[in-house]
């Protein structure tokens, strides 16, 4: 047995590499193919609620058995034909983009401050960034409901300062979604940014100053370009899951906060149209593969340049 494994290169180093590959094959590629298969079938009232893709047709009269493969492309055509899906996609991208920009604007100064803090303080500060993860995600979102609702913390504060007189509800709007999602994904932005900013050699800034460069310009010409890998990594880590986000918009968003995650949920559970839901999922995936590939390309080039 070991001999056989050795012969096909699946022993020692091969084994170590094979484990993650096997994992990805089992838990990513196989489910993906199942979903892809469902997306090409037809919805029907049955259990499971879709027609099988491959069927053996046994014709007893003619005494023949036929293999029938039915590929139904109409699910994908529906995605293009119905405004709902396109609007949901566009709105998801918009919300994800706003979230990413907010995370970047908030996260960059945070990461910079932590990276420039005394070495002994960096650990505890990073800990504070990660700390919210130790509480259930849902509980944290429910806490935001309490903060944002009418007569909630924000509303009371605004009324107390006299900025508003009427009860004012931030909850169930796109604003609430932006706030909630920025809050959720901020650590994903801070972590990679901190990693690149911490590695940045402070003598480079001294060199820039020595050559007559003012601090803000040194930031633009030295710090910012050199932290680009962190910006890209953080932005993708925030953007990609934001596009498909379901829970936060569902709990904080209004009825008209249309996102692809909610459409997906509706198709699966409300309409029980698994094929269309699968097509939405596959389209979303393809749509996300492009930024990942761009990211990896840029990352690869950066690593090469850094050597």
């Amino acid at each position: 047995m070991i001999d056989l494994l050795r012969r096909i290169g699946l022993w020692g180093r091969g084994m170590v590499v094979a484990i993650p590959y096997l994992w990805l094959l089992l838990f990513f590629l196989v489910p993906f193919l199942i979903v892809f298969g469902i997306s090409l079938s037809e919805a029907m009232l049955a259990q499971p609620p879709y027609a099988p893709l491959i069927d053996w047709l046994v014709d007893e009269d003619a005494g023949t058995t036929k293999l029938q493969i039915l590929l139904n492309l109409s699910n994908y055509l529906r995605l293009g034909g119905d405004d709902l899906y396109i609007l949901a996609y566009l709105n998801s991208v918009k919300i994800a983009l706003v979230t990413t920009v907010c995370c970047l604007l908030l996260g960059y100064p945070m990461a910079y401050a932590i990276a420039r803090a005394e070495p002994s303080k960096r650990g505890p500060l990073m800990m504070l960034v990660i700390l919210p993860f130790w509480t259930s995600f849902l509980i944290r979102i429910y806490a935001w409901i309490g903060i944002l609702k009418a007569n909630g913390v924000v509303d009371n504060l605004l009324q107390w300062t006299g900025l508003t007189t009427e009860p004012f509800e931030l909850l169930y709007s796109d604003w609430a979604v932006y706030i909630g999602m920025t809050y959720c994904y901020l650590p994903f932005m801070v972590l990679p940014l901190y990693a690149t900013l911490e590695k940045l050699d402070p003598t480079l800034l001294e060199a820039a100053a020595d050559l007559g460069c003012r601090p803000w310009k040194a930031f633009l010409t030295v710090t910012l370009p050199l932290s680009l890998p962190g910006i890209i990594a953080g932005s993708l880590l925030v953007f990609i899951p934001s596009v498909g986000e379901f829970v936060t918009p569902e709990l904080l968003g209004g009825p008209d906060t249309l996102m692809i995650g909610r459409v997906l949920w509706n198709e699966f559970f409300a309409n029980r149209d698994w094929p269309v839901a699968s097509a939405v999922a596959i389209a979303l995936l393809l749509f996300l593969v492009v930024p990942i590939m761009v990211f990896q390309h840029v990352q690869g080039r950066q690593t090469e340049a850094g050597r």
Partner: protein
Amino acid sequence: MAVQPIRKPTRLEPWQDPGQKPYVRIEKVTKTFGDFVAVDEVSLSIYRGEFFALLGGSGSGKTTLLRMLAGFETPTEGKIFIDGVDMAGIPPYERPVNMMFQSYALFPHMSVEQNVAFGLKQDGVAKAEIKERVGAILDLVQLGQFGKRKPHQLSGGQRQRVALARSLVKRPKLLLLDEPLGALDKRLRERTQFELVNIQEKLGVTFIVVTHDQEEAMTMSSRIAVMNHGVIAQTGTPTEIYEYPQSRFVAEFIGSVNMFEGRVVEDQADHVLIRSEDAGCDLYINHAVAVPAGATVGVAVRPEKIALSKEPPVNAAANAAANADGRNVTSGIVREIAYLGDVSIYLVELKTGKTVRVTAPNVVRRTEMPITWDDEVYLSWRPFAGVVLTQ
């Protein structure tokens, strides 16, 4: 061992000319980090066109002093004047100073040309002029064809020259160099030392260089300040520092030295006689010292100034006074010989138990050398060889 200074003294040196105003004046500068005193009341005057070396071990405060000149650190006390202007409160980007960093600090995301052009761009120099000046300075450091490369595509020596070009392209009046040759291998370092001196003389820039390498300081600089624990132990030309150290620290830091302890028995205007248990003979030195008779002093004798012989040395006329009654002559047994090619180092154990280091040029081939292990030899030196150290 010590390389003679390569500059020829053609005129009165500026630090001896009372009419000259110093270009850099450091007045009682102190810098503390918490409880640690990095620089302790240092005062220095450095003149235009000098190649000035701050020499010291790690933690001697030399780099802190340099960083205060560049403006990266603020003196806790004292003042720094550059060209007569008080530098207090002037940020690094407004000082007429450029610095070459020990790590070179090249911008990794910019090409060699962009790195060199960076400083000129900050000053808003016209594009055409930037191109011309960057090209000229890259030619000067022999990197003309490497302009498009990124720093990581260059060797250590090439990076060092990019860093030099980048700090010189703005034509600063004062260039600070922090261990400029530290990262280079020995052969490249020697060649670059001469290149640096040539460039400095060609451009007439004042250089202040920080180094821990005494040989480097001796080769390149017009004057050296030896630093120890935040204090300047001695300032002088390389010859002064080497031949007339003022303290044991300086004598031992620069080159190698044999230190004999002794008591002053005779102090005249033209000579001093010291009785040394250590050396096993009386030491005769042809300069006077200002210490009372009977005081304990140290006498430093450089290894290359001691002559070795198997026969008792003949009293030549010039040495008659010195070597009379066995002064400056002692004997011992050769314990170790290190053959370095051009010279050999002999470790001779004196009868008193002290080990003395002697270097002698290998005039004949190693195999024909008359002195070998366990030989009894005589050591002698001339009256000018010793330096009396009271501190």
